[in-house]
């Protein structure tokens, strides 16, 4: 693990913070400790918020969970909705999910991958790539991109819109819909809804192909820089299907090491807690998962687009597979680990999602009306996992005889990337900041590395945290509304 994680005597150093990290989803900050010569000694990405889903979901009926739990995240609500419902299928005792219902879930999920990847690339990250890491801080945003590259920005907005519409047609709402229920789906797709999406999807595929080309062209202008920026070698994990192809909805876990050798394959994700351990560190609310077989020092891994396109043997759709193949050829088959390569992989997946959506819309089953499984006896415990836009997502539930949840454990995608993101910012600090006069543009390089992982700090804040000191909350007239102290026995509420 990196030497820049913890210094012995932090008081000796000057502290700089990036607070909040901007153009990411949710709350995070970075602290950097420097000596008098601006040498960097410690760099940490802190997740500073908490909400407490795992605990307050206890006592709620199991059938409610797929709708509640998506409020973890407004960017990838469908992933939480579906990971939870996959667990609840088992708990409800559902037998085989009818093909139409499974395909509708897949349609919803690939719509979500498409919209989230478009949001991430165009709205959040493209300002760095298209306007420059050091460009004017007041213009380094999507509105700035609209001004400089209006057509590209418009395509990005419309790509996201298409994904959101796919979600709306399958779940009833663009955000926090209710399409999936234990055992299947609650809404069929009408022919006119299908046709509406079908007549747009070819344009969407064309735009997605252009977006991949654009990024490849940009990175080719300075391969040395773009390939190595924020590079951290690590293991990689994702879900693949029986044939080793990328499957974002269902399959077994595969892990490769940094050189691309398979360490684990087709592992049943229900055993995730035997494969993955989680370490807690005092300075962040986000845990640090690692492979139990390798331990916390060596067992951390990457998830998400860059991991997925490299753990899988191939993608099932032609345009996206061609791009993936080319990406692998360019590195002579050695896995790539540069942070910015996440963007290329993400856009390849966006293209893949658009192609999968087209294939699903062309499948006659998609407008079927057989939406619900038959049910057998209920079960007490189940795990649901899915590849969310940002990586592998685990939901684990137990329910009591009444059907009320009595245990919930979540490992969200961003948590899986915790160590990798921390190592990426340390890499950037070491290579781009250390010994130099710190400027806003230099600090933005740290954020560029974080953004490449597309962290959803919103998702990552489901755990609870502690109150280290004392705070008083007063209303606008100065009257005490609320007070908290370090020893929470003494909490008083006025």
């Amino acid at each position, binding site marked *: 693990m990196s030497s820049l994680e913890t210094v012995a005597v932090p008081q000796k150093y000057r502290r700089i913070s990036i607070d909040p990290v901007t153009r990411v989803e949710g709350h995070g900050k970075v602290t950097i400790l420097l000596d008098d010569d601006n040498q960097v000694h410690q760099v940490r990405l802190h997740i500073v918020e908490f909400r407490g889903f795992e605990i307050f979901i206890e006592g709620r009926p199991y059938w409610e969970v797929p709708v509640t739990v998506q409020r973890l995240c407004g960017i990838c609500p469908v992933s939480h909705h579906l990971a939870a419902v996959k667990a609840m299928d088992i708990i409800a005792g559902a037998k085989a999910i009818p093909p139409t219902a499974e395909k509708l879930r897949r349609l919803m999920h690939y719509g979500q991958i498409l919209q989230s990847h478009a949001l991430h690339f165009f709205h959040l990250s493209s300002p760095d790539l298209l306007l420059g890491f050091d460009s004017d801080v007041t213009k380094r945003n999507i509105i700035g991109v609209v001004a400089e590259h209006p057509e590209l920005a418009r395509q990005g907005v419309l790509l996201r819109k298409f994904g959101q519409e796919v979600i709306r047609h399958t779940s009833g709402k663009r955000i926090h819909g209710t399409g999936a229920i234990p055992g299947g789906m609650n809404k069929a797709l009408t022919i006119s809804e299908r046709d509406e999406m079908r007549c747009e999807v070819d344009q969407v595929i064309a735009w997605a192909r252009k977006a991949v080309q654009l990024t490849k062209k940009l990175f080719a202008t300075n391969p040395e820089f773009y390939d190595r920026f924020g590079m951290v070698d690590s293991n990689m994990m994702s879900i693949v299907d029986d044939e080793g192809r990328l499957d974002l909805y269902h399959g077994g876990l595969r892990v490769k090491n940094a050189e691309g050798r398979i360490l684990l394959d087709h592992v049943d994700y229900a055993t995730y807690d035997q494969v993955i351990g989680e370490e807690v560190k005092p300075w962040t609310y986000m845990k640090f998962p690692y492979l139990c077989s390798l331990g916390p020092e060596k067992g951390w891994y990457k998830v998400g687009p860059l991991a997925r396109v490299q753990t899988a043997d191939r993608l099932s759709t032609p345009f996206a597979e061609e791009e993936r193949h080319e990406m692998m050829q360019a590195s002579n088959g050695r896995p790539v680990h540069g942070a910015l390569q996440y963007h290329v992989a993400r856009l390849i997946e966006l293209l893949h999602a658009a192609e999968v959506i087209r294939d699903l819309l062309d499948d006659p089953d998609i407008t079927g009306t057989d939406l619900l499984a038959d049910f057998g006896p209920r079960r007490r415990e189940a795990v649901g996992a899915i590849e969310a836009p940002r990586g592998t997502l685990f939901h684990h539930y137990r329910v009591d005889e009444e059907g009320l949840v009595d245990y919930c454990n979540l490992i969200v995608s961003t948590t899986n990337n915790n160590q990798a993101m921390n190592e990426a910012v340390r890499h950037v600090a070491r290579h781009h900041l250390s010994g130099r006069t710190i400027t806003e543009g230099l600090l933005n390089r740290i954020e560029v590395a974080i953004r490449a992982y597309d962290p959803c700090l919103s998702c990552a804040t489901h755990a609870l945290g*502690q109150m280290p000191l004392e705070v008083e909350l007063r209303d606008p007239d100065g009257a005490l509304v609320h007070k908290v102290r370090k020893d929470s026995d003494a909490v008083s509420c006025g």
Partner: protein
Amino acid sequence: MNAIADVDTRSAVRKLRVATTSLGGCCGCHMSFLDIDERIIQLAEHVDFDRCPLTDLKHCGPCDIGIIEGAVCNAENVHVLREFRRNCKVLVALGACAVTGGLPALRNRVDLDDCLTRVYAGRGNGGAVPNDPELPLLLDSVFPINEVVRVDYFVPGCPPPEQAIWKLLSDLIVGHMLRLEDKLIRFD
């Protein structure tokens, strides 16, 4: 899609400055905002964005409109919320979390200490509860934002529909009071 109605020449000259932030929320209200889709390009002709999740401004400066998503969960949320109130002429609570505490307020029925121990010591391979001074203080209860600052408008929904957000902005841009017809007032 209704255009921003009859913007007079005055407002065309001076753009409104809008800041938004997410406190304890899921970013879904911000996503609903982005669901105005290509109208964001039209909106940019009438407003400048101050601090918001899409810009790199870390603090809220003087603004015409401040939009808050999410509930008040920790001391930093209180701090940011007050900064918005100080700087924004009009402050809007957007979505269930900001208006009522929403889903995050479900934690108000559980004991903090107990939760902390169960999450950090009782799952995975265990460990102490994070307690670094870099982490903001938690409040033992989650609050809607109007318990901390004065709020001018409340827009319900989880998230509010994008048409409601569009109506909010177009009304404020032309200097009207916000009026939401029934179908834009949602509680789901």
